[in-house]
């Protein structure tokens, strides 16, 4: 039962990253690919109707994690107190900038929000990567099942780790590069004209950084977290996950060259999904590795009561079917390229 919920939570987090990933990425390249007001409104319109729906996945994934693995939620969230709060502030700024930018047109109003939108999206991407890096590296859990990490200590992988050390910063940069690519591919698919061309160029260029950082981080990770090697040796079929990521990355380059915008974006989805599932697979059965492996939190030690998990499975399945219905409906209604004319008042 707990393994099912482990997979469900992983699936929801992966979906969140795929969905909110493209609008974060679009934000991160906002100032780079869109120069005029009209172009910037194009970028915003490409995510406008869907971004808050995407962000709801964060709440849904968080809520699911909360009820399925309460001890993990408690320990992880209080231990990552500072970075989570900073991410919350950035998400508040980001949401506000998307929603409020177009209420007023003025030489001081929209450039300010464009800048906040871009900066906050960029930083959120880095923090998400760093958070993932922390989980992979392991945190200083002790016998009480709690830990607390300051933002940084000495940037080394010692006993007194901070949120940011050289390893987690590296993962943060990989996350930024990957989401810039993902967002770029989304924007080129949803817009037209110079914005679309520039977005495709950005995605094509950052691709090299994504590949280089992926190789580097993967190599380092085998050293940082021994469980990774163990899992891939015990269950060799798990290699499908990294292979998916490789295929996705190759697909992005291939489809970009063929100028197939939709497939290039889907390939990027495959890359992200492959990377995330590889991480999750290589950590199982741990949900929160400790620096001292004795104290690592596992699916069994963190799970909620069996009855609750069983009932949850029922409503979760119903809820997801409904949600899949709305999402299909909404994405269909807003399918195709966005059109921004000078008179449209929203975006």
């Amino acid at each position: 039962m707990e393994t099912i919920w482990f997979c469900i939570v992983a699936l929801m987090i992966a979906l969140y990253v795929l969905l909110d990933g493209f609008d974060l990425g679009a934000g991160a390249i906002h100032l780079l690919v869109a120069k005029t007001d009209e172009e910037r409104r194009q970028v915003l319109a490409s995510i406008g109707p869907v971004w808050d729906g995407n962000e709801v996945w964060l709440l849904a994934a968080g809520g699911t994690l909360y009820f399925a693995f309460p001890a993990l939620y408690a320990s992880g969230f209080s231990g990552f107190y500072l970075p989570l709060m900073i991410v919350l502030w950035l998400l508040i700024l980001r949401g506000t900038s998307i929603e409020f930018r177009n209420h007023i047109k003025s030489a001081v109003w929209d450039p300010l929000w464009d800048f906040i939108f871009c900066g906050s999206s960029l930083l959120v991407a880095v923090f998400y990567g760093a958070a993932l890096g922390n989980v992979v590296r392991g945190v200083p859990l002790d016998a009480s099942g709690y830990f607390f990490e300051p933002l940084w200590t000495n940037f080394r992988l010692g006993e007194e780790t901070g949120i940011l050390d050289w390893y987690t910063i590296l993962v943060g940069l990989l996350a930024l590069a990957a989401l810039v690519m993902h967002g770029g591919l989304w924007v080129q698919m949803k817009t037209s004209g110079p914005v679309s061309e520039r977005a495709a160029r950005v995605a094509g260029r950052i691709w090299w950084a994504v590949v280089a950082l992926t190789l580097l981080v993967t190599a380092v990770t085998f050293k940082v977290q021994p469980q990774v090697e163990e899992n891939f040796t015990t269950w060799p079929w798990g290699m499908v996950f990294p292979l998916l990521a490789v295929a996705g990355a190759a697909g992005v380059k291939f489809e970009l060259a063929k100028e197939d915008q939709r497939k290039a974006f889907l390939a990027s989805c495959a890359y992200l999904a492959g990377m995330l599932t590889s991480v999750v697979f290589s950590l199982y059965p741990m949900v929160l590795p400790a620096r001292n492996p004795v104290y690592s939190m596992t699916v069994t030690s963190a799970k909620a009561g069996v009855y609750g998990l069983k009932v949850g499975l029922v409503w979760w399945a119903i809820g997801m079917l409904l949600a899949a219905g709305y999402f299909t409906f909404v994405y269909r209604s807003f399918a195709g390229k966005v059109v921004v004319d000078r008179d449209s008042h929203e975006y």
Partner: protein
Amino acid sequence: MEEALEVHRLHFAFTVTFHYIFPQLTMGLALLLVYLKTKALRTGDEHYNRAARFWARIFGINFALGVVTGIPMEFQFGTNWAEFSKAAGGVIGQTLAMEGIFSFFLESSFLGLFLFGEKKLGRIGHWWAAFLVFLGSWLSGYLIVATDAWMQHPTGYSIGPHGEIALSSFWGLVLNRWALWQYAHNMLGAVQTGCFVMAAVGAFYLLTKRDEAYGRTFVKAGVIVGLIAACLQLFPTGDMQGKQIAQNQPPTLAAMEGLFETQEGAPVAILGQPDVQKRRLDNPFEVPKALSFLTYRQWTAEVKGLDSFPQELWPDRITLLYYSYHVMVGLGTIFIAVMAAAAFLLWRGKLYESRWMLWVLMLCVPLPYIANTAGWMTAELGRQPWLIYGLMRTAHGVSPRVGAGNAWFTLIGFMGMYAVLSILFLFLVWREIEIGPEPRSRREEEGVPVLAD
């Protein structure tokens, strides 16, 4: 750890109070938007569609702020209240996760369509979008109230061998009796906020002699729905909440009423300042025997005062609890009076010309916000010293490793951030009211100046 506990409490109180400014309006407005869309559909009059579009813009601003200030609420269960989450997450995580999966997906999907898809959806499709936004937001309200109700009056759980609290009955959690009454009471409060805001904007248009057709629509809808909600707020929902508290949280009832001594034929204190040290109410202005009657329907029934309970069971902020409760009840009574007077004038056909009544309606706009906040303060302060009533003390629920220094840091951060949001919010909402419900292009044709958009 003493200081840390206080800061964590303040942290949650501050962020949730600010957050709830927005949902109380969106939940109330969602109902009124369905009303306007229904009118538009039934009469075929474009006037109601324009009115709905105007309110949809204000709804959109509030919804956006509700979302961005709501995400921190869910996070804080884990970040600031880790011991509580670890113990009870298996139970209340259910309702919180269901909120995400059932209502937020629904709400956010259809709000996008409601705001941007009117042309694509057509008349009936757009009505459905409005209805589903309403359904999503009201469902979300229920699941949050059910979460709080479980903390007020835990049901459907069992205690495991290591003291962990596990869910044992799903329906026991979801259909908690406490939740049903609390939800009804809470939603009526939200509807009143929606009604007072709508009526106030209508009154503003009538008083400033602009957009008067819309002004009349807004005032009428606000007053009629508002009167019904104000009455139901007091009876039966408020009355039932009081009874539930009397039954399940007797020390809370005594503290709310400022009743220090157990007595037969206990009075209701309308005014008075509690002096906790001397255990008495200064300058009391009381209705004799009313509390006994309201609680037990007998003028001479005995009501337990604070002296009947050991001091460690007393709520730890008696004075604040007493005032929150009195502010809530006082304002609730004023709302009935204001709405009844306005409804009477409406019935006599004099409301739109009665300037003093329009002034009153316009100036009342902050009051429902205060009443809703005071009501929630009554509920949450009344629950003290328990985090889960009878099961876990508030002091035992905080995150053991997050010290006062870090908690202050983020609290100050939130205060700064929310100060900026408040200014933006007031500015943008005021701007929408200033622009008004008439389509902008038509205003330009008529030579009415509009702010550049």
